[in-house]
Every structure is written in C-alpha cells, then in structure tokens.
C-alpha cells in the first residue's frame, strides 16, 4: 500500500545529544580498516589544521541511522520495516565530527514515492551540535520492497 503523502515535510523531534568520543572514532576507523593517523593521533590531526582528531566521512551514520528509526518504526506511517533496504546515501559535510561534539539529529521526511509496488522514502537528517552549529546533513533513501505476490490457491 502506498505511504501517506501527508508525511512529506514532517519533522521529527530532535534526538537526545550523542557525544562523539575519541575512542569511538578510533573503533569506527578500525572497523573500516583505515589506519589513517588523523582518526587517532591529535598531533597528526593538528598538522592538517584540525583542533583534534576527526571522524571518517561516513561516521555520522552512527547517529543518523538510529535517528531514522523514529520514522521507520512510526506506526502512523506504517512502513513495512521488515522489507526495508537501503537504496542510497548522501552526506553533505560542513566539517568532520570531532571528540566532544554533542550532536543532535533532526529527521525530516523529504519525499515519498511509489514505484512498481515499492515504497521509497527519503529522510533528511540534520546533525548539529547542541550549541546549534550544523555539522552534517545526511540523506538516506529507504526502499520498502513490494510484498511477494500472494500464492495462488
């Protein structure tokens, strides 16, 4: 069933602040197999002009994905979350995340489309510090694949 178009433009309440930690950045960099010292060594980061280590470009997914759950599991929207796959992902970075950033995410439903029985919903997640500095905007296309055709009797 097509999703309710009236959800387009809806903004969900800000998430509780997520505090970015140096060890979390290191853990994420280890997990993506990236040995770059700028993710681990404050001196290496300072040599590139940063005040502290920085997080990898896809690190904000750690914050934006749980934030999107507000929409994915919103019973009023009725997305069939068991059929949801990740269609595409975009980041527009103002700057990298850094240790000590306390990040609040605000999710807005940007578009809802239906194609060949698939529901396609684009979520825009603005991630800002609690002080109000915008760090990153993430956009994710989530696709709820069409249900299997019902079996013939």
């Amino acid at each position, binding site marked *: 069933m097509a999703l309710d178009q009236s959800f387009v433009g809806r903004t969900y309440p800000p998430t509780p602040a997520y505090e970015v930690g140096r060890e*979390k950045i290191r*853990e*994420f960099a*280890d*997990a*993506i*197999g*990236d040995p*770059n010292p*700028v*993710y681990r060594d404050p001196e290496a980061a300072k040599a*590139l*002009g*940063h005040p502290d280590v*920085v997080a*990898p*470009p*896809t690190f904000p*997914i*750690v914050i934006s*994905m*749980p934030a999107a759950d507000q929409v994915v599991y919103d019973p009023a929207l009725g997305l069939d979350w068991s059929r949801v*796959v*990740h*269609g*595409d*992902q*975009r*980041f*527009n*970075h103002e*700057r*990298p995340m850094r240790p000590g950033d306390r990040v609040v995410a605000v999710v807005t439903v940007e578009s809802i489309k239906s194609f060949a029985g698939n529901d396609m919903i684009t979520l825009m997640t603005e991630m800002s510090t609690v002080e109000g500095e915008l760090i990153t905007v993430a956009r994710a296309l989530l696709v709820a694949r069409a249900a299997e055709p019902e079996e013939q009797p």
Partner: protein
Amino acid sequence: MTETERFAPGTVLPAASFPITRKDLVRYAGASGDFNDIHWNGRFAVEVGLPDVIAHGMYTMAVAGRVLTDWIGDPAAVQEYFVRFSKPVPVPDDGVGALVEVTGKVTKALDDGRVQVDLTVLSAGQKVLGKAVAVVRIP
C-alpha cells in the same frame, strides 16, 4: 606538476582492493550499531531470499571512501559523498570472503577549488554501487 594539474579532470586516483570477511562485518556491526541479521546471520539471510550474508552497504561506502581520503590526505576535504546501493556484496563464510575493488577518477572541476570524483566499485566483477560520487576540496 602544479597543484591544479594534480587534481585536473581526467586524473586517475590510486586504485585499491579491500578483502571483506565475516569478522569484518561483525566488527563493523559493533562499531556502527547496525546489527541487522542479514549482515551476520547466514540462516536468516537465506530465509529472506539473499544468497548469503551480505556486507552492510555503509561498510562498502566506507571502504570505497578510503580511495578518496588516501588520495586527498585530509578526510575533511570530502565535502559531499553519495552512493547508490545497486547490488549486494555477499560475504561467504569460506575463509576467503569477498573482495571490493575501487577505482576513481576526477570528472569535473567545480567552483571554490573543488573537484568531482567518480568512483567505480566492483565485487565479483559486478558493479555494487550504481553510482558513487564525491565532491572534494583540493588542498
């Protein structure tokens, strides 16, 4: 070579290949918080119609991004990064896993000293990211 020439359209980025094992997916699940069963539970993956456990799309996006950041040096230079997930990357539990191969090319000079880079990301000869594009600020 001048700085402008180093980043001129047509410039080819150093290619890289990334092996992916089940252990990598478990580690990424822990670090990212994405514990979806299709990324670690073979029984579940097959039940929902997948050939095997598949890599997190975001894991593929992250490793492909290393070709950008290793080339440009400062990860903060990556201002925009977009990928379309077109094919899953199955990661069999066979002691070998999968291999993701990434190449990249500067395709456009943009304003404000920025360039567009297009990445090509293959696994088992298939394009797994239908599109992978970044906007990078040149140092």
